[in-house]
């Protein structure tokens, strides 16, 4: 075992006392051989160039020298003079207590606590976390530059035996908490969850900036394959190997505690697992967070996310349909199977490494995951799937429901009409209907928030009729119930409200409304 020499530096070191301090230090070190020397500067307030020269001379003899607990003024001196590059110099960290603090998030490498109204601290599981912290700061910066809304820590502190990084966090609420406290916001959470994931997955990362998730995932497959019959194990590895490399970003630990809503903005946190790769390697861990972890014991998710297993199941189903932009059960099931193969592989390896294998529960969990994995391997021949394009086909447009997007919606519909040809009058009437309905969604459906609208435009086989379908997941609202405005009133008594939907009704040949599966669905038909 290496013996370490620990010496305290106190007060001021300047030209007045430097020779004396040097003498004292050399006296204390005289029996020291090649052992590391640590100078504890907790009580050092000032060091002049005379003091710096003392340290340089000591370092010549005792090369493994480091200085710790340096206060920020003294650290600045070390930094300015280049000492921080010559030796290990560690800042004094503010000490923060998390006793009685609310847990607001939990990630793979740490847990986030709120320390006061404006700040949270992420406490790392690993006691020797300075490198992890540095890594996370770097990837968070990279993500921010690449356009991902995230938070970057502004301070590193000591929390008990661990380190923590401090973030400013005003009124932030995790999605998990929103889902517990405001169950009627589930659809909104799903929507934002998907929206953020699309931003992440459409972000191209410069070569070499982030690790390749495929390499990590291959480790899951390799370890898990050892637990399977030879043929199934080989197939598992082959499926993982066949997934093409991908330079798009993935988060790596995407779940409802790592997405927060703060001041009307959705932020992604816990960036230390950021990587590049095919989205199937993201969907696997998402499946685990919502389902896999709690598949054997449904109560696991309550500890982890706060909401129950049924809520998580609903969330997962809605998430996948929205992410894939389809209601086609077969497509959804197919991608779910792929995600589960990735998910179970990770769960099995993780539990074999970190779980308590003497527990009956752990053994039963692994057995269940293994059984399901084997079933899935029977029916799955590739992990690859196509990420849906922004328009699933050119008959459908999904767009943020805001007035500024009106022209995009009109262009989309007008292009359909141009393709079959219609009179300017008809086109104007269709535009009227589109404008009034879309603006209505933009102003009211998600107020005061925002959300998406889906517009489908179908023209029948003999080009005689246009059918427009408007779908939003906002508040249930049937505009057709609105009473028509009284048009017999004189101008000064006329009320302008309700005119828009009245004009829409007058401009089209048929209009109907229904509320289904959390969606307002308005269908308009116009003869061409």
């Amino acid at each position, binding site marked *: 075992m290496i013996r370490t020499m620990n010496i305290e530096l106190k007060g001021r070191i300047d030209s007045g006392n430097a020779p004396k301090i040097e003498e004292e230090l050399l006296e204390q070190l005289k029996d020291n051989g090649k052992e590391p020397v640590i100078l504890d500067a907790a009580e050092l307030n000032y060091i002049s160039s005379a003091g710096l020269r003392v340290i340089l001379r000591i370092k010549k003899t005792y090369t493994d020298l480091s200085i710790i607990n340096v206060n920020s003024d003294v650290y600045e001196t070390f930094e300015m003079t280049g000492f921080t590059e010559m030796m290990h110099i560690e800042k004094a960290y503010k000490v923060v207590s998390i006793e009685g603090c609310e847990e607001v998030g939990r990630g793979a490498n740490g847990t986030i606590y709120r320390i006061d109204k404006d700040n949270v601290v992420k406490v790392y599981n690993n006691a020797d976390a300075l490198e992890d912290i540095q890594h996370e700061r770097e990837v968070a910066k990279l993500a921010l530059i690449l356009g991902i809304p995230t938070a970057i820590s502004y301070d590193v502190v000591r929390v008990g035996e661990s380190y923590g990084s401090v973030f400013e966090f005003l009124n932030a609420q995790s999605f998990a908490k929103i889902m517990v406290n405001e169950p009627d916001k589930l659809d909104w959470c799903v929507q934002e969850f998907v929206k953020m994931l699309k931003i992440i997955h459409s972000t191209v990362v410069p070569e070499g900036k982030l690790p390749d998730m495929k390499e990590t995932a291959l480790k899951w497959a390799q370890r898990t394959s050892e637990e399977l019959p030879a043929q199934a194990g080989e197939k598992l590895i082959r499926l993982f190997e066949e997934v093409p490399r991908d330079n798009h970003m993935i988060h790596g630990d995407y779940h409802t505690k790592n997405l927060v809503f703060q001041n009307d903005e959705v932020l992604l946190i816990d960036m230390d697992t950021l990587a590049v790769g095919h989205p199937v390697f993201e969907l696997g861990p998402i499946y685990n967070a919502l389902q896999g972890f709690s598949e054997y014991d449904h109560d696991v998710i309550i500890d982890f996310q706060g909401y129950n297993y049924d809520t998580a199941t609903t969330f997962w189903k809605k998430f996948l349909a929205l992410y894939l932009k389809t209601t086609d059960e077969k497509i959804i099931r197919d991608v779910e199977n792929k995600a589960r193969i990735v998910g179970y592989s990770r769960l099995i390896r993780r539990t074999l490494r970190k779980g308590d294998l003497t527990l009956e529960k752990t053994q039963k969990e692994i057995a269940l995951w293994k059984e399901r994995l084997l079933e899935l391997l029977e029916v799955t021949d590739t992990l690859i799937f196509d990420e849906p394009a922004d328009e699933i086909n050119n008959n459908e447009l999904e767009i943020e429901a805001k*007035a*500024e997007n*009106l*022209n995009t919606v009109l262009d989309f519909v007008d292009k359909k009409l141009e393709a079959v040809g219609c009179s*300017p*009058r008809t086109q*104007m009437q269709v*535009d*009227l209907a589109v*404008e*009034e309905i879309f*603006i209505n969604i933009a102003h009211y459906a998600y107020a005061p928030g925002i959300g998406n609208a889906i517009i489908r435009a179908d023209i029948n086989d003999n080009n005689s009729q246009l059918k427009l379908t408007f779908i939003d997941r906002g508040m249930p609202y049937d505009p057709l119930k609105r009473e028509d405005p009284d*048009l*017999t009133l*004189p*101008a*000064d008594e*006329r009320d*302008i409200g309700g*005119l*828009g939907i*009245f*004009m829409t009704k*007058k*401009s089209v040949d048929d209009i109907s409304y229904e509320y289904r599966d959390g969606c307002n669905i308005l269908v308009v038909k116009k003869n061409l």
Partner: protein
Amino acid sequence: MNIEKILNGTELTIALDGRLDANTADELETEIVNSLEGITGLIIDLDKLEYVSSAGLRVFLLTYKKMVKQGEMKIVNVNEDVMSIFEMTEFTDILDINKKEENK
């Protein structure tokens, strides 16, 4: 949408060009509200207006309610398509709206 204003004494002509919809109606409202002081005759020329939605009708109605206290308001040169919207909403019964003269 383009808005052109011609002031002749206390008579103001506002000519609109393009589409008057949810995104352009606010601009028109601001323009009109800021120009009405001392105006006794307002002519809104829709010769080059292609389209108007309820957001635009709202501005016309608001303007009328202001103008009725200080003078007269006329909408002129309305093309057939836009006219169909005024007719549909019976604005033709309450405002002074005049069709575009064909083959002028």
